[in-house]
């Protein structure tokens, strides 16, 4: 067609103007008299303030047989205090226009509060009460346990969640907490009651090991007074230093099919563990992983989506499991996506070809340049909201990183060359050291996958 082209005036591609300097915000770090650490960051115009709380209560600390107690405790914090019942607490929080989410993960418990700045003081008071004096009523905890038990079948039915559970069970030693679901199993959750929740709280939740990150537009707010009156009123005992066990994993190349008869797609999750954010290779690994599968113009989607149409999208990523200054941490390095059932064998074949070609030929300078321009260039967009800034600052705290880690990461990415990025991504995804989980119709995919020779194939029931 040339009808439209004939009449529109074309202009050459414009060149960029001068970039306005932008830096990841530097938080102000301080401590309340009770030992609670506070990071604050004034972001003009951000009327919804974000508060992130880090509690040093790792999943590793859950008592044997009580997987999920940290999750139930995190949820039960907002189920009533010494002043309010569970229903009153929920109502007061929503009266502030606030949202409060809490979840437990390997490094600890995270609580996220978002609230319009004008109601921050009120909401901080509720949050502080939840931390300082949770009631953990028997009836509410029992209800949360039952609710959690009801959630489990929904998670198992979700192909992506099921794949993640199967991969953890494959990679980590049976005795390790990381091998088991973060929020517990039916068997372990059934054992949780108000007494075990309270015991976990008393053992692991105290101001000296808690950090609060507060980000937003503080104009007209006396944040010092607000913090002193709320989180500052919490008292607690000192804590013994915590030693995290090293993370080990068996990444012998193999395939596990979680059988889903009749599934129209196969969920892929291909992974192993590798360098975390304390490792010097991290920026190169971020860069190389982006080139492999960060977006739909990366190597994997260029073939699997844009050439073959096997998938809506396949991504490669590195997700920190736990990252500590002593170097015992690790990140999950993985490739995930879903492909139509009939294309499962051909898609995996192409995926392995992409990895082999990458190892043989390396990244190009042009690929590296575009990746750096994207990863560094999107920073001001990515950190426009208070919640995004608070989340990253809280991650840094949780991972024992300096407060300027993200700001420095941009300089380190810009200084990373093609050769380093290639080496990092090839080391991260070696073709013979990847555990492949496929959630799909075994009757249709088992033989084609066996024929690929990417490792022994086992079928488990869905």
């Amino acid at each position, binding site marked *: 067609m040339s009808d439209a082209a004939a009449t529109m005036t074309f202009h050459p591609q414009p060149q960029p103007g001068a970039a306005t300097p932008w830096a990841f915000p530097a938080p102000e770090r301080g401590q309340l008299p009770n030992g609670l650490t506070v990071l604050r960051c004034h972001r003009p115009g951000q009327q919804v303030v974000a508060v992130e709380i880090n509690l040093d209560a790792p999943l590793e600390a859950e008592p044997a047989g009580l997987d999920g107690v940290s999750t139930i405790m995190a949820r039960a914090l907002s189920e009533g205090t010494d002043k309010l019942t569970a229903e009153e607490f929920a109502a007061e*929080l929503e009266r502030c226009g606030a949202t409060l989410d809490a979840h437990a993960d390997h490094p600890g418990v995270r609580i996220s509060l978002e609230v*319009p700045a004008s109601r921050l003081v009120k909401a901080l008071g509720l949050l502080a009460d939840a931390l300082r004096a949770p009631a953990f009523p028997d009836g509410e905890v029992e209800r949360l346990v039952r609710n959690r038990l009801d959630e489990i079948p929904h998670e198992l039915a979700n192909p992506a969640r099921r794949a993640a559970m199967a991969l953890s069970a494959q990679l980590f030693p049976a005795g390790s907490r990381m091998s088991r679901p973060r929020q517990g199993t039916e068997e372990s959750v059934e054992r949780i009651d108000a007494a075990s929740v309270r015991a976990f709280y008393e053992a692991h939740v105290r101001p000296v090991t808690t950090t609060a990150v507060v980000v937003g537009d503080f104009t007209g707010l006396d944040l010092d007074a607000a913090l002193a009156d709320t989180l500052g009123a919490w008292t607690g005992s000192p804590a013994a230093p915590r030693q995290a066990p090293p993370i080990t994993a068996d990444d012998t190349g193999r395939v596990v099919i979680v059988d889903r008869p009749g599934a129209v797609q196969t969920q892929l999750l291909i992974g192993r563990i590798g360098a975390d954010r304390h490792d010097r290779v991290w920026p190169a690994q971020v860069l190389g992983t982006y080139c492999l599968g960060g977006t739909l113009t990366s190597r994997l989607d260029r073939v699997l989506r844009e050439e073959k149409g096997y998938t809506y999208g396949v991504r490669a990523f590195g997700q920190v499991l736990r990252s500590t200054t002593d170097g015992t941490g690790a990140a999950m390095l993985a490739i995930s996506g879903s492909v139509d059932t009939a294309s499962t064998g051909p898609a995996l074949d192409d995926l392995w070809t992409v990895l082999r070609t990458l190892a043989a030929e390396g990244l190009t300078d042009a690929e590296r340049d575009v990746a750096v321009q994207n990863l560094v260039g999107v920073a001001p967009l990515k950190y426009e909201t208070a919640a995004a800034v608070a989340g990253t600052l809280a991650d840094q705290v949780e991972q024992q990183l300096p407060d300027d880690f993200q700001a420095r990461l941009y300089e380190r990415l810009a200084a990373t060359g093609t050769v380093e990025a290639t080496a990092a991504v090839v080391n991260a995804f070696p073709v013979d050291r990847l555990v492949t989980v496929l959630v799909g119709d075994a009757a249709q995919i088992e033989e084609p996958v066996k024929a690929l020779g990417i490792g022994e194939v086992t079928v488990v029931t869905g």
Partner: protein
Amino acid sequence: MPMGHTATQQAGSGGLTATEHRLANGLRVVLSEDHLTPVAAVCLWYDVGSRHEVKGRTGLAHLFEHLMFQGSAQVKGNGHFELVQGAGGSLNGTTSFERTNYFETMPAHQLELALWLEADRMGSLLTALDDESMENQRDVVKNERRQRYDNVPYGTAFEKLTAMAYPDGHPYHHTPIGSMADLDAASLEDARAFFRTYYAPGNAVLSVVGDIDTEQTLAWVEKYFGSIPAHDGKQPPRDGSLPDVMGKELREVVREEVPSRALMAAYRLPHDGTREADAADLALTVLGGGESSRLHNRLVRHDRSAVAAGFGLLRLVGAPSLGWLDVKASGGVEVPDIEAAVDDELARFAAEGPTPEEMERAQAQLEREWLDRLATVSGRADELCRFAVLFGAPQLALTAVERVLDITPEEVRAVAKARLHPDNRAVLVYEPTAPEAAEADVTAEETETAQ
């Protein structure tokens, strides 16, 4: 004035302003300056969505949206994505019942590139569109359908509810993803005709928000978009008007392999842009919008009959809006018990209306949602386009919160009484089957109509 609970002095608009412009070819332009962060959002809404599709070609608007990323006269292949991402920007497009939108958020100094790219495809997409792109993106979209709907428990629930709530032949009877058969049937010529009909400057609104210079931006818009020829082959969408209420309950029972029983329902609600729609939003928030809502308290806290229970609102302009109830049952609980409790709560609410405390909480929640939407330049750009395309008045985006805060408890009660009752809903019940049964019985969805 019942507006005592605003969280911000200027109730959501936060002092934001926008200017409106129109090019000779009909392209409407909305600009809004905000220099706090060096970013700029470009958003382009085309006034075309799945409601414009014809029988046998469902999913075409969305498939076409994918083709818009496959290159144009001066942009090769995946160049649109490559250039934006290489400039440190982010981008995407989405398709709904009533519109298709495309957006780029850029570092401010890269704004001109995004405008050049959008203009290139608006003016010259067909010079690049070919069979290879069509076949490839057809497969991608079919896999999108499988991933997001067909391979997920309850994944096709919304599609089934929509099909019941809007009768056969109604423009909103089908959802934007379309059917596999229609995606297979779409031809390159269909795509070309779709572009010629709907992708005209006069059928679009462009908004640019952020660290921009209004005069300079307008000059760029004129330079890149100004020479795109006007054309107006567009037919108005089929009439989407329906009676205010359904008149009788519709019901479908789905027996398939899902993790638990579920009760879902779609209620026919007032059109977006009316006070009644804002009142309905508040009613659904009080009833099912959070952890202090009536349905959460009743079903999840007190009766312990549900894992989760809530209401959502799909605001629509060209047809009645849709209130979507979603309750996932706890183990062992029967759907009729849940349904009786829901009906009990709805009837009580219709009789009594919200308490002052409930009203305050619901307005505070909706206000925060608006503040969130306006907190980013891309969110603001999208809302300006929305109000420009759907209501012809972009400025209304900046005062939407005030309108929600102006609604009275009596208006909330009135809309609940008029709309939230069994004779105005389509009900979808899920009854789980064992895996073996599901395999042998894949087409055994039965339809029942209540008396």
